[in-house]
């Protein structure tokens, strides 16, 4: 029994090209166009990659948790697949955030690892996401696996606002947030802000591409599993895709 060949849609290649191109342009803007910072000099260039990746890692957790909630609601395998794809990309971007943060903090704060609230809690987010994958590996039944991982992702999502609040209250070594989400105004140079926001969009585009590719793979896996159940003469549970 062979799977129906799935044609790779042309727009996916366009999306991949656009993602790589915009990340390259973002790097160029950050490395060549951006003026050096008054205090940090050229080190500010690390910030463009670090901050954009950090923001997208939180976005990815949000996508994973929302898809998980959608899976709990209707039980469609596609939602579980999107949730896993979101969690995997969140893991990747979270790891990149930590690497970027360490690169940034060695020259500015003279230490690789500070027990700063944001850095610590990003590390915790990565640990929580790793927990999702450990638990998924232990459950065979797809519906239950999806439900349990969705539940863990909801708890991860609930702990993210505490992450943000903790950064406010613990007042440790992390540089003061330049963009105040509570409406205190922007304390960053206009050109720099434009380049930062461009980099955020580029990192986001890369995230969307990775997500779509991973969902395509995930859907094939669901299909293969369904065929395998049929071939085993099992319960023949119908998998709606």
């Amino acid at each position, binding site marked *: 029994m062979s799977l129906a060949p799935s044609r790779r849609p042309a727009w996916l290649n366009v999306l991949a090209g656009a993602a790589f191109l915009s990340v390259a342009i973002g790097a160029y803007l950050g490395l060549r166009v951006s003026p050096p910072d008054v205090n940090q000099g050229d080190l500010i260039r690390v910030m463009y990659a670090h901050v954009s990746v950090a923001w997208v890692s939180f976005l990815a957790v949000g996508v994973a948790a929302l898809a998980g909630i959608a899976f*709990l609601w209707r039980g469609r395998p596609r939602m579980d697949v999107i949730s896993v794809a979101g969690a995997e990309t969140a893991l990747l971007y979270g790891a990149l955030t930590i690497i970027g943060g360490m690169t940034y903090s060695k020259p500015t704060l003279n230490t690789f690892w500070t027990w700063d609230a944001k850095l*610590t*809690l990003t590390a*915790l*987010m990565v*640990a*929580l996401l790793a*927990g999702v994958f*450990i*638990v998924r590996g*232990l*459950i065979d039944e797809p519906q*239950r696996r999806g*439900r*349990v991982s*969705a*539940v*863990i992702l*909801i*708890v991860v999502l*609930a*702990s993210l*606002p*505490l992450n943000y609040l*903790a950064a406010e*209250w*613990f007042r440790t070594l992390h540089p003061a947030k330049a963009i105040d989400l509570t409406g205190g105004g922007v304390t960053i140079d206009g050109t720099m802000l434009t380049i930062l926001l461009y980099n955020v969009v580029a990192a986001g585009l890369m995230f969307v591409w990775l997500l779509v590719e991973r969902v395509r793979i995930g859907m094939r896996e669901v299909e293969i599993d369904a065929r395998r159940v049929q071939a085993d003469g099992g319960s023949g549970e119908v998998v709606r895709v």
Partner: protein
Amino acid sequence: MSDVRALLAIAWKDLRSEARSRAATVATVFFSSVTLVVLAFALGRDADVMTRAAPGVLWVALAFSGVISAAQAYQSDLIEGAFEQLLTLPVPRAAVFLGKLLTNWLTMTILGWVLLPVTAILFDAPIGSGIPILLLTIALGTLGFSIIATFYAALTANLQARESLLPVLMFPVVVPVLLAAVRATDAIVTGGDPSLAGDWVQLLAGFDLVYLVVTSAIFHIVVEE
């Protein structure tokens, strides 16, 4: 009203069962005592270091015991399939969760209250003026702990390697609770000013509330078969 009665009945059942077997009590009391002693050896003989480490030591001992206590909460029920019976009760699943949580929280709070003077003596930590706030901090800190521990213990109860999986899953989530609890305790022990602990205690109460609402709302999904 019957939901509350079911909740209390489940908590009462667990308390009585624990009073007879003393399985969790023995395990957590001895384990936390051993943790205190091991940490005392690890920290050396410098009295000043010991005093400053005391708040952290207390919460490390409580955190590790909390894992054991939560895992134990479902153990006796799972053996004879009693947990499935509990789930057939015509009450919201959240009532079952909150009943389990209540017992767990009570035992952890009492353990914390017992460990407090023991830690203060072993580590020579001054707690005199701040005892009421310390007792409140312990009650709120162990509540946050018990919420996450009881929730994840239900989630991992049917999985392989649950003993090692439970701490791996729950510790990253309880870190905000642990941080706030340690800072509140620290404000009294080394800061010597109970009023400094107030902000941390409020923060702790906020964390507890968020976790309590979220876990109660989604517990029924965890136990669904």
